[in-house]
């Protein structure tokens, strides 16, 4: 569990230290543009080496400073550890764990499993399928590093096939790409299904305990849209995709797009067969999306020894007080929470928390 954070020269945060002391959670409130998101971003960067929002690390370093430094103190099974990360304006990253220089963030991610969730979490089920695919791919990739390598290769083949569709004069020129896509696609779909099964089991437990909606059965349904959706067809996935690619060869040729494969798939959550996206309110969609992130984090943290940390950036907007009063203590029982919001109204819902106010990048107690 994390018990101290140091941040030096990160955006508008000049030099701050957050101590969890005997508490478990951290509650930071303040008006807009004071540095709440910057604080959570810096904590995330300690373990991942990248910002959850910004692709350019340079933008996180103040213009008049050469580097940003973040530090985190945490314990695992009673042993204390310290990690420091330095980001230079040249793009270099220096990581040190317990005084030893390390070259990869992978061990830190295992020791401090964390996720950042903003108000945009609603897009998980209210947004486009690519948002869900990206989220699922990231989750499966963290569960299984081989998945990331296979996904990367699949994407490379897909780019080449796409270029072949646009440039070649012969429809059969895509065959050499399809022959590579089919086995890779099967591996991707099988691993997504395994991950969704774990997620579905965990989410069913969460929803049963919380009682946010009345239902008896929850399903995370994988939708191979281009193959006709049906799960019972997956045992012959390779054959099915091969057949579809053969039948749709001319269609792909005319549209100049890769129309079939896991890059077109989607997943949805259903309560007794009713789709979360279509039959439930935005507040419930937001709450379930948040619980999906908690479930993912807990599944990931079960593989290592580290205690999970959830960074909640005003993520409970649109959720009513009754549900907030259920959600925050529930999530807190499963993960440590660093929570930012504009006022102190949620303070009583979050148990065992240190409360800080942030003004112009400076934190003060209470």
């Amino acid at each position, binding site marked *: 569990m994390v018990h101290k954070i140091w941040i030096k020269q990160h955006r508008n945060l000049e030099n701050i230290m957050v101590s969890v002391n005997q508490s478990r959670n951290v509650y930071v409130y303040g008006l807009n543009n004071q540095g709440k998101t910057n604080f959570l971003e810096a904590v995330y960067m300690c373990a991942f080496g990248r910002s959850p929002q910004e692709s350019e690390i340079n933008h996180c370093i103040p213009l008049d400073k050469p580097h940003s430094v973040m530090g985190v103190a945490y314990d695992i099974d009673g042993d204390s550890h310290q990690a420091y990360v330095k980001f230079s304006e040249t793009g270099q990253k220096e990581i040190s764990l317990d005084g030893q220089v390390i070259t990869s963030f992978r061990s830190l991610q295992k020791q401090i499993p964390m996720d950042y969730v903003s108000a945009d979490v609603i897009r998980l089920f209210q947004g486009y399928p690519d948002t869900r695919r990206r989220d699922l791919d990231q989750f499966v990739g963290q569960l299984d*590093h*081989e998945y990331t*390598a*296979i996904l990367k*290769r699949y994407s*490379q*083949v897909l*780019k*080449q*096939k796409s*270029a*072949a569709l*646009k*440039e*070649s004069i012969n429809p059969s*020129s895509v*065959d*050499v*790409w399809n*022959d*590579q896509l089919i086995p890779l696609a099967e591996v991707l779909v099988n691993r997504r299904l395994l991950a969704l099964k774990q997620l579905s089991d965990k989410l069913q437990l969460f929803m049963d305990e919380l009682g946010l909606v009345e239902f008896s059965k929850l399903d995370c349904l994988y939708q191979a849209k281009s193959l006709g959706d049906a799960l019972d067809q997956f045992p012959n996935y390779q054959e099915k995709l091969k057949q579809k690619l053969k039948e749709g060869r001319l269609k792909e040729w005319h549209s100049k797009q890769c129309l079939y494969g896991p890059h077109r798939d989607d997943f949805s959550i259903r309560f007794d067969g009713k789709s979360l996206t279509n039959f439930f309110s935005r507040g419930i969609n937001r709450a379930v999306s948040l619980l999906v992130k908690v479930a993912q984090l807990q599944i990931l943290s079960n593989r290592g020894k580290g205690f999970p940390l959830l960074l909640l950036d005003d993520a409970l907007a649109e959720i009513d007080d009754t549900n907030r009063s259920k959600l925050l203590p529930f999530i807190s029982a499963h993960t440590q929470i660093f929570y930012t919001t504009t006022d102190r109204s949620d303070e009583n819902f979050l148990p065992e928390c240190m409360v800080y106010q942030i003004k112009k990048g400076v934190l003060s107690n209470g």
Partner: protein
Amino acid sequence: MAKLPSVGKKSAQRLAFHFLSQTQDVVDQLAETMVRTRRNIRYCDTCFNISLSERCHICSDAGRDEHVLCVVSEPRDVFSVERTHHYHGHYHVLGGLISPLDGIHPEVLRIQELVERLRSGTFTEIILAINPTVEGDATLLYLNSVLASFQIKTTKLAYGLPMGGDIEYADELTLQQAFHGRTGI
């Protein structure tokens, strides 16, 4: 200088300052050698390896095995295979790999020339020594369909762990291929 492969801005600067620190004769000699080499080097008419004459030193060598043909992507691959001193057959250089993103389609490669060599040659085995990349695999699949009509034994190089390597540091796809290609001991 920074346009050269594997040379970044800093290395290019270091090389430029190195040349400036050398005497005029040394730099002239280097430049002359580069220009002469570029002018005199051509592709072998038979295998398309780099050569100083119409036929390269490998195609002209009567001692090479005329029954085995190794198909590679680039001339530099011929040098890599030759370094092993393990292969004594002939070569065919395709001149690249299928990559629509780079505008390289099968028609651009020397596949038709390969087919003609096989028709008129005495080859009984073809070894495809192609990089195991996405583009390499696409080229392998394409060649396999083209060569199917020839009834000639066709093999590809085994994929797997490098000598002296450590299983712990092998990436997942390589390890998977090593398992598929495991051999008896």
